[in-house]
């Protein structure tokens, strides 16, 4: 689909801005909600819902900053551009031209590869800070990434075979008509593999060693502060929510409205949270080995499943 006129482009950009705002705010609120839920479990009150916003404002309003160099300066820019861009390539609300963003530019494959954009840029920025812990954190994070990519890739291949398309919109379209059409029902094996990969992707315990706050003070962003940090905070919410939207689209039937989206993504998120609070942390090589065992096996089975059972 080609946009003939500039005004159409501007319209699209405007709607995307709206999407961006909603998703970011939603991401921040979900973050707070999760914090509060965890706090309740621990018998505490927990942070106010406004806390993530205040935190961002606070870091944004810091009056001093240091810079380690141009890549350090650009790192957070890359990072948030990665988040925004990923969202831009995902249709958020099914059936809504307004909120399908720029998904016509590419397909699922584009989204998966573009996720690396921000990570790579951030890694370079953190690298230039010269802090060894940044490098260690990135080395761990990247290694873990290669591991959870395997079950995820297998699951994606499985659903691509299943729906015979890479277009996210079409994948969502194929899941319409009731919950029995969702991938989680029709191809539960792939969903299982992908959800295990999702645990690694979110960076919650047990796969949070690359951010280990005690050992390598929060890893890659250890040197980032002030306005840089506010970018990273926004991105964390935005990118997290974007990943949830992607998973919702691929495995849980997408959403036809914002409310549906919020409920579904929250539930998906809860998977990672529940696992996170229940399990201690893996060492990074244990984490890698974990993904290469059961989740990969499930991923392989999902392709076999889709070929044998669904074909």
């Amino acid at each position, binding site marked *: 689909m080609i946009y003939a006129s500039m005004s159409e482009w501007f319209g699209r950009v405007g709607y995307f801005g709206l999407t961006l705002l909603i998703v970011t705010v939603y991401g921040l609120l979900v973050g707070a909600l999760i914090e509060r839920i965890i706090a309740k479990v621990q018998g505490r009150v927990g942070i106010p819902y406004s806390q993530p916003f205040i935190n961002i404002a*606070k870091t944004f309003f*810091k009056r001093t900053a*240091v810079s380690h160099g141009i890549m350090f300066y650009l790192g957070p820019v890359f990072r948030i551009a990665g988040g925004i861009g990923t969202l831009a390539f995902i249709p958020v609300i099914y059936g809504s031209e307004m909120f399908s963003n720029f998904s016509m530019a590419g397909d699922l494959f584009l989204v998966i590869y573009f996720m690396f954009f921000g990570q790579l840029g951030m890694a370079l920025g953190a690298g230039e800070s010269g802090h060894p812990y940044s490098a260690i954190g990135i080395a761990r994070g990247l290694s873990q990434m290669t591991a959870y990519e395997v079950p995820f890739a297998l699951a994606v291949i499985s659903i691509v075979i299943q729906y015979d398309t890479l277009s996210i919109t079409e994948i969502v379209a194929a899941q319409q008509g009731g919950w029995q059409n969702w991938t989680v029902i029709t191809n539960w094996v792939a969903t299982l593999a992908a959800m295990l990969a999702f645990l690694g992707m979110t960076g919650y315990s047990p796969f949070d060693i690359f951010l280990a706050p005690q050992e390598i003070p*929060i890893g890659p962003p250890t040197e*980032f502060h002030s306005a840089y940090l506010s970018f990273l905070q926004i991105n964390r919410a935005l990118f997290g929510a974007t990943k949830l939207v992607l998973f919702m689209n691929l495995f849980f039937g997408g959403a036809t409205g914002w409310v549906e989206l919020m409920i579904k993504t929250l539930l998906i998120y809860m998977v990672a949270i529940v696992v996170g609070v229940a399990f201690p942390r893996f060492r990074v090589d244990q984490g890698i080995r974990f993904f290469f065992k059961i989740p990969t096996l499930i991923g392989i089975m999902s392709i076999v499943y889709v070929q044998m059972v669904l074909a």
Partner: protein
Amino acid sequence: MSKDRSSKNTMENSGLSADEQLLFCNARPEPYKPYSIKAVEDFANWARANSLWILAFGTGCCSIELRPLMTARFDISRFGIAGRPTPRQSSVFIIGGYVSVKTLKRIIRSYEQMQGPKFIIALGSCPANGGMYFDSYNTINQFDLYLPVDMYVTGCMPRPEALLAAIMELKEDIKAGNCDGANRYVENLDWYKANQKKVIKNWDMPDYNW
């Protein structure tokens, strides 16, 4: 890089060897001004007050009193307070009790690496007047000679409630725009540095740890 290394806006860094001079920034810090628009500054102060990130650096035995604050009984997080493992991202430094000379050096380094506005709460008697270590050969007696303190909490040790009360008071101060310890430090940097160097004999770090 080397051309601008000795002007009046620079520090001498005499504690460093010639090789090391190039490895550390030698700029002299400058005080920051509040935002010119009062509403913005007020909002910023409100945000700062409601999002106090404490540097996770327990400098002495009173740091043990920080832990209960995280628990269900006190739950400090409801006031927007969180721990932060890196000084770059923290805004509050809680001096947890006695400060030995060796620790003081690290405290100074960490404090200078925090980004302003930043605040110090001195916990317990020792930072105030030496406390029970008043006659020790390696424990300082008056912490505010070396770094600007925004709030003292006395006691040996103070209860968590006392610390909590101090934090709440600090919040009020910040909101009122009264906490400018970081600027005071920068404005009187030479005096502070002289005091610091008097007790820290092997000053082998830059004069200002950016």
